[in-house]
């Protein structure tokens, strides 16, 4: 009996998770907050989500065709980018603005650098930053959650808190999401359900989110309204884009460090920068720029941290370079 057998390197078996199943789990985790956004902001939110997701996927499809690259939309990462972008936008943005943002995210922030795994900044946040710079007033116009009668909100919680204009939501309103803000960032409970799913499916670990939270909370307390160490930590954690970012942005694989220590440094740095921008910077919200700045530090962090091998000596990079 002579059979033609396939030879190949060990290991010969593989765990069931693939890039596609991971991205699918991220989409599932984003579902509760998407639904909450649609409930509170209505069909406008659904429109923004649909346009952004479709634009992102179509853009990646067209890009890979034009550049004769392997088809990658089935890994679902474009859909994740489109959805994350939509969830970080106001439900009042015009559809074409959401579409341009999604195209920018895929082409400029992701594909030009080589696509999935190669982009150095979070594509959704990069697109959001571009849109903030391009259409500052539309990007800062939010709506009141239903069943309010007046469509356009005077201010979202963060500016309301900072400038004393408009209503600051109660703790209960923040928890269920009855406040104005971006589509995906208003309901704390929906976001936490998503986090639970990510943890249950072991998609992310709590290293970065916790480091981000601890650092952010400390600086929120430090930079209080009434002087040092008077900050309303709970308000800052539960309002604005912090929680959404803590769960879905600082845990992004590609744009955060690969070692645990690196992730903690990343989270701590992002927490400091977020609060620095909120407290003393030019914007009421600091999440986007804080994370983008830390994204840029990731190659440095990953280069600097060389874990000692099991049983190996602790060597610093410099010595290793000279070895």
């Amino acid at each position, binding site marked *: 009996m*002579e059979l033609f057998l396939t030879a190949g390197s*060990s*290991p010969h078996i*593989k765990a069931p998770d*693939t890039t596609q*199943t991971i991205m699918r789990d991220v989409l599932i985790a984003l579902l509760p907050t998407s639904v909450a956004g649609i409930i509170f902001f209505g069909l406008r939110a659904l429109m923004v989500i649909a346009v952004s997701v479709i634009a992102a996927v179509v853009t990646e499809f067209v890009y890979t065709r034009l550049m004769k690259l392997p088809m990658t939309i089935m890994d679902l990462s474009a859909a994740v980018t489109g959805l994350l972008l939509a969830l970080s936008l106001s439900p009042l943005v015009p559809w074409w603005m959401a579409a341009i943002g999604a195209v920018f995210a895929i082409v400029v922030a992701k594909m030009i650098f080589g696509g999935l795994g190669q982009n150095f900044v979070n594509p959704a946040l990069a697109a959001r930053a571009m849109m903030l710079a391009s259409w500052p007033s539309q990007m800062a116009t939010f709506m009141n959650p239903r069943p309010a009668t007046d469509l356009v909100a005077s201010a979202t919680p963060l500016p309301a808190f900072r400038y004393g204009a408009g209503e600051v939501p109660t703790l209960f309103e923040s928890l269920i999401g009855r406040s104005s803000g971006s589509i995906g960032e208003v309901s704390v409970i929906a976001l936490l359900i998503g986090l639970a799913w990510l943890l249950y499916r072991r998609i992310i670990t709590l290293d970065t989110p916790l480091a981000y939270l601890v650092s952010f909370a400390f600086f929120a307390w430090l930079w209080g309204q009434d002087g040092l160490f008077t900050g309303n930590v709970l308000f800052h954690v539960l309002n604005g884009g912090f929680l959404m970012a803590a769960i879905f942005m600082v845990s992004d*694989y590609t744009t955060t460090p690969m070692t645990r220590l690196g992730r903690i440094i990343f989270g701590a740095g992002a927490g400091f920068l977020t609060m620095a921008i909120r407290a003393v910077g030019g914007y009421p919200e600091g999440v986007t720029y804080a994370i983008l700045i830390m994204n840029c530090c990731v190659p440095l962090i990953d280069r600097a941290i060389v874990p000692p091998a099991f*049983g*190996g000596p602790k060597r610093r990079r410099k010595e290793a370079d000279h070895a």
Partner: protein
Amino acid sequence: MRNGVKRIPGGVHPDPRKRTENLETVVMPLPAEVVLPMQQHIGAPCEPTVKKGDRVCVGQVVGAPTDRLAVPIHASVSGTVKAVGPRLYAGGRHITSVQIEADGEQTLDPALAPVSTRDPAGMIASVRDSGIVGLGGAGFPTWYKLTPPPGSTFDTLVVNGAECEPYITSDYREMVEEPIRIIRGIKLVQQMTGIRRVLIGIEDNKAHAIDRLIHASERDSEIDVLSLRTRYPQGGERQLIYAVCGRIVPAGQLPSAVGVLVLSVNTISAIAEWFETGMPLTSRRVTCDGGVVAEPQNVRVPVGTRLGDVFDFCGGFTSHPAKVIMGGPMMGVSQFSLDNTVLKQTNALLALAPDEINQDAESVCIRCGRCVTACPMRLMPSTMNRLILDGKSEEAAAVWHLNDCIECGCCSYICPAARNLVQSFRYGKAEVRLAERRAAQAAAAAGEEK
């Protein structure tokens, strides 16, 4: 019984698939012929001591060691030497092999006799004559391990019953069927090495084996059976030592550096058998399993049996195997032909169905870091992979500890992008060795010019 003292770093949990664990070992009928490659150990190949036409008996030496490490190879059947010549094996190497046609008599070599010497040095030398190598898969000559290198001493014998690879139950069956022989073997090793403290490490999914060995070692206060939390690659030497006694073997050094000798349960049993009967290592238990094997079971087969003969004995294939592997699915070597033969260190033969093996195409790294978390040596597989593919293997070794990789396969197993990480590390290590050799040659040439 005690629990293991430390949890190993990293590791993964592949589906155990130990379907053969409750099946009594079956002795396979004699094959028509055996082929004995002259290298079944780490070290130089043996020199054949027989030629075509010679009659040989069971246990007779057919290959003699040519360096200070190697161990002899013995005939596993009695019969006539049909051919002596090179044959192609997995890994693409040609190895001189002795082909013996069995006469079915199994005539024993009259010189075989139980080992009478009880002088430690004489006992260790006699282990060399037995041809025993590490039966867990690596094939390191056992006698060589028994003497600590100059400057170090042994204080602990760690008996490896972890058997963390999926499918394989060869060690498990030994622990269940022959616990007393394992204890007798341990005592012999204690005599040879002067070691008093013995720790037997068994994963906690093998409760029956743990019970059997606790029972067998009841009256020996020096022997401790430790239950370890199941986790691959706990059977790796460095990992097991850490799990059972908390010692960390320094990178690049041997377990003797921390005073530990590690032997697998089957190796220890083989030592007992050799001393009691004088029968060298000529047969062994092999787990024959996999999705396309009709009747998976544990089989005792003569060393040198064709893989095809073993599978035929196990009912043949129900469909075309996607891969045939010698050893476990995590570290085993895939075979290109069923005409290859069972070696001394072959603990399993697996014929796997397409849905059992990894057939995913390699895609891009998404930097998820799962390989970093899974690496039991605390390396950075993703970073090393990128450097090696960029032609920077030496940087991967100098900065990122490439040479500490034990090729356990955890990184490739866990990678959602199905990247061929371990494969690239083998390539990278070879590149580094080549570069070092070239540098040494260049230095030697420069020295001559002066």
